[in-house]
């Protein structure tokens, strides 16, 4: 009997210890002191969406060409929807050729992007069965899809920016063919508009002929807290000095980093010199990882342009670019990278909220725009002509608002400005350059 009681006791103890051990294993967390006695910082993010390359590289024009005439969807949303369709089309038989002389083509659609990007990016944007190119110096700013009526297939062409090489492919899908064919049959309908080609510019630009009226919007907006930005940009906020350099302008500084926040924008520099292992990442990939890490795409930002060590993204609203052009540019995100380290980061801290007011605004007709551009001396430098929203901060008794006003903009030297009024014209109702 004695033995039995001891065994029961032993069993209970064993069950108990096994429970304790199991529980302990689930909950065990190593206790360690943070390396620097930093006040612990909650992971901060800016609340934007995580973005992929295909979210950032989107066309800003889709032009249907037939018999020397050009047309587009009236609504850029429709163009974007059509591009989303194209992304699904299966592109096969990819091959690379030298560019031959332009042959007169029947019906084709040209998809135009705001900036030149390496062709290799399209591997992730489009549905391809093999890589488009291994050549990292193959840049494109557009591609075309041509209807081949005899074989009933679609022929896709990427012409390199230096116009030396071409990568071609074929879409065999019958549904894709029919979709494009039916669009070409209905180009005279209401949802399409005629366009004209602006020649002599830095690249082919298509401008709608008709006059348009667009809506101006007044938005309430959220602004990212200065402290949140500080916690992202400084690894040890403990040693950061803060000063107010001017009313409403906050300067955070350490010996090698500086963050200035003013007027809903920020400018950050890091001058530390690090000897880091070089990673073989493009600036695009690095900056994408960096911004995603703090969920920094707080709106519809798209790739505006990049160089070997810098990159810019521009805010879009309703598929139109947004332009601000102030010292703290509230419509862009800009980064510079040196030795794989972020050395400069300028960005908008504005994220648009709800519309509180709208008004119609009539824009100049394409005819007027063409005239005024062709009067210009710098026509050859014009990289793009688009309708864009000008972003301004308006203040009333209830606080600050964002006003988005549509206007015709031209891009020269990578910066956007309002297309000037033609000299002969004495209209004076609009703003000059901004």
């Amino acid at each position, binding site marked *: 009997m004695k033995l*039995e009681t001891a*065994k*029961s006791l*032993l*069993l209970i103890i*064993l*069950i108990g*210890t*096994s429970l304790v*051990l*199991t529980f*302990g*294993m689930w909950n*065990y*967390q*190593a206790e*360690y002191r943070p*390396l*620097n*006695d*930093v006040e612990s910082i909650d992971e901060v993010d800016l609340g934007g969406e995580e973005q992929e390359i295909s979210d950032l590289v989107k066309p800003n024009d889709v032009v249907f060409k037939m018999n020397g005439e050009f047309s587009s969807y009236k609504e850029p949303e429709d163009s974007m929807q059509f591009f989303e369709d194209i992304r699904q089309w299966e592109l096969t038989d990819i091959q690379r050729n030298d560019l031959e002389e332009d042959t007169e083509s029947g019906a084709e659609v040209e998809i135009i992007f705001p900036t030149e990007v390496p062709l290799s990016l399209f591997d992730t944007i489009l549905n391809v069965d093999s890589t488009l190119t291994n050549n990292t110096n193959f840049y494109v700013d557009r591609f075309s899809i041509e209807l081949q009526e005899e074989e009933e297939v679609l022929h896709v062409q990427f012409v390199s920016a230096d116009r030396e090489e071409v990568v071609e492919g074929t879409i065999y899908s019958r549904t894709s063919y029919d979709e494009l064919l039916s669009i070409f049959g209905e180009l005279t309908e209401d949802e399409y508009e005629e366009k004209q080609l602006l020649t002599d510019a830095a690249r082919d630009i298509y401008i709608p002929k008709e006059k348009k009226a667009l809506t101006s919007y007044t938005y309430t907006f959220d602004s990212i807290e200065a402290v949140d930005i500080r916690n992202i940009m400084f690894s*040890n906020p*403990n*040693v*950061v*000095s803060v*000063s107010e*350099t001017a009313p409403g302008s906050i*300067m955070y*500084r*350490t*010996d*090698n*980093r*500086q963050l*200035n926040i003013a007027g809903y924008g920020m400018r950050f*520099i890091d*001058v*530390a*010199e*690090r*000897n880091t292992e070089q990673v073989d990442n493009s600036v695009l990939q690095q900056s994408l990882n960096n911004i995603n890490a703090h969920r920094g795409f707080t709106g519809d930002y798209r790739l505006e342009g990049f160089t070997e060590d810098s990159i810019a993204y521009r805010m879009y609203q309703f598929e139109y670019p947004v332009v601000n052009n102030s010292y703290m540019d509230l419509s862009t995100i800009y980064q510079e990278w040196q030795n794989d380290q972020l050395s400069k980061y300028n960005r908008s801290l504005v994220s648009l909220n709800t519309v509180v007011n709208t008004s119609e605004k009539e824009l100049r007709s394409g005819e007027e725009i063409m005239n005024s551009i062709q009067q210009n001396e710098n026509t050859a430098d014009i990289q793009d002509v688009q309708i864009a929203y000008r972003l301004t901060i308006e203040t009333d008794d209830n606080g600050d608002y964002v006003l988005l006003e549509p206007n015709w903009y031209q891009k020269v030297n990578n910066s956007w400005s309002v297309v000037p009024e033609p000299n002969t014209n004495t209209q004076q109702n609009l703003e000059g350059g901004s």
Partner: protein
Amino acid sequence: MQWSHIKTLFILSFLVLNIYLLFQFIDKQQDMDIPELEVNDLNLDEQLDQENITVSADTDFEVPELSYISSTQKEFTQTEIRELNDIDDIDAAKSVDNKLLTVEFSSPLEIPENLERGDLSDLVSPYVLNTSEFSFGTWNHDLNIIVFYQNKEGYPLYLNQHAMLTFYVNDDREITHYTQTMVGDASTQGSTSLNTPKIAIGTLLQNRFLNAEEEVTNVTYGYYSRIDEEGEGTQVFAPTYKITVAEEDEENDYFVNAAESFTYPGNYTEYFTTKMFEENYLQKLYSMSEDDEEIADDLISIIEDKIEPYRSEPE
């Protein structure tokens, strides 16, 4: 009887389970425990030995608890200018923004040959305000200027154009002018644990600023700020080791951040020429010169002569 058998069986199986769990638990504990981040001094010594690098500098000194400090620039007052002008043999003036003090010796001050460093400050101290706050920094022979760094919390602010006493020496070893900038009272910005001087030397080695057959001749502690553009208020100074590396006859200084290990080679001539003179002092002197300040005119021509060979090509 059967119940007793079952109990035995249970006891055995729980015993096995417990042993298994215990091993798992210990395993997990070892995985999770973050190893002490300790750079092995012994290892470094071996490495230095292998590369035949000698460390003749004292690396065992104590560093202060307070680490990061910040300060804004001091503006010189009219009273101070008057005070200086009362001293015989010198004329003083200040820049329009009151941040740069310029002084001219009416008869150049000769620097005796074989002068010890300590004597140099004795030599100039009768002519300088707040000399006690400054200590000898470097004698740059490219530009032939002698530079003193301002001290804060008992340690020098290395190579900072806003906290510097600069003597302009002519070809006859005579001081003709000096300029002075200062920062005001320092406030402690925050502290963090600092690396030892040994670890800083290890950083130099890793970054290949320190190479085989070289010698570490001097290690000192002070403050250094990489961002010293003006006009934006407060400067933050990081705790920094200045490490002197000698390679045969040539000596190079490196500034190694004591908290984060960032390393900056001390490119003195380039710093003086571009950042200090071209972008700052000369600009201020030009505007003084517009106000017909004679000292400024003289100093401009002296500085321009000195930096002429070292100016970077305009892009």
